[in-house]
């Protein structure tokens, strides 16, 4: 399948109608998702016939893109039941029910009631929260949640789940830190592209004004690195 064709298919993925700002539910656009997954396949052969894990699956955009490029199977994780419901609708629309399995789990937590070793996949794909939120509005008990460096927290889970490689997006401004972490974690790191990512520009709440939500807020563009991590201590290598 050609890149343009992939992007065109992905334009049918339904976006969040009421995105939750505290979860940073910004959809990976068809344009970005197509380029990420297309690159992972055509340059690295990491999608077709591979088993995948999608962390923070959201609308299912990256997983659906992967299945359109013939991924074997995807396990998608998200903590939010509304997102999982939307994702399920999208999966159904693309008739990919047998290729993508969803699991509700909260990756913000420091530990999961799941044996990560049992569910390992060849490739992990993700568009993690960037930790850019201006304020936290979650009302739930946050004691056990990771609130700072959330993208690195996702990456830490990803490296335990990936047998071979990880594709992820991170703010360009944090690149030095990511290089350092990748070294600590013994991963090869390649910044494949610098992309513009539009995220909702949220205003501080004022009592008289209608509260803007992530879905209807004006957008601001931030620079993000599209990064490929390779697990070095893989026995196959």
């Amino acid at each position, binding site marked *: 399948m050609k890149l343009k064709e992939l992007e065109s298919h992905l334009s049918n993925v339904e976006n969040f109608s009421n995105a939750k700002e505290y979860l940073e539910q910004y959809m990976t656009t068809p344009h970005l998702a197509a380029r990420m997954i297309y690159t992972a396949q055509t340059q690295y052969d990491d999608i077709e016939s591979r088993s995948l894990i999608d962390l923070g699956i959201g609308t299912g955009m990256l997983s659906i893109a992967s299945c359109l490029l013939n991924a*074997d*199977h995807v396990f998608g994780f998200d903590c939010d039941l509304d997102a999982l419901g939307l994702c*399920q609708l999208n999966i159904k629309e693309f008739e990919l029910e*047998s290729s993508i399995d969803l*699991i*509700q789990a909260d990756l913000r937590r420091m530990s999961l009631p*799941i044996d990560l070793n049992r*569910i390992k996949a060849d490739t992990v794909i993700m568009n993690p929260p960037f930790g850019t939120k201006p304020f936290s509005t979650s009302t739930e*008990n946050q*004691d056990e949640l990771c609130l700072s460096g959330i993208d690195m927290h996702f990456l830490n889970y990803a490296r335990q789940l990936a047998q071979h490689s990880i594709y992820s997006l991170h703010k360009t401004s944090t690149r030095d830190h990511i290089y350092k972490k990748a070294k600590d974690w013994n991963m090869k790191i390649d910044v494949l592209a610098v992309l513009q990512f539009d995220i909702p520009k949220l205003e501080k709440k004022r009592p008289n004004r209608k509260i803007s939500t992530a879905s209807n807020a004006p957008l601001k563009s931030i620079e993000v690195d599209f990064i490929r991590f390779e697990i070095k201590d893989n026995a196959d290598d």
Partner: protein
Amino acid sequence: MLTSNVLKGITKGFPLKISSTKVENAPVDYNRDFIIRIMQRIEYDALRGAVTDLGLHESLPETISESTQQNEEFLKKLHKVLLEYEVEEGELICPETGRKFPISKGIPNMLLQETEVS
């Protein structure tokens, strides 16, 4: 879906028992190469346990030998069990602690419960 394997596969206190109130069965295109690849990753005994838990009328051989793994009939049965059965409603039960993880609309809930958050 691969539900039975996934659910079995992801849990501590392995394998979890499955109980179900609603199981669906829908045909899925057979992909032999995929089944052969996925077979390497499955805990076969756990899968057999899941088939028993769910009371599915599918007989899987007790052990799989080299020749079974090439047997077309066996591969198709594996395909059916792994991909065509889906637990829509039910729960996963940890054999050690008795902790239950609900399955709703086909999605297992592996969130920690309030009482587990210290």
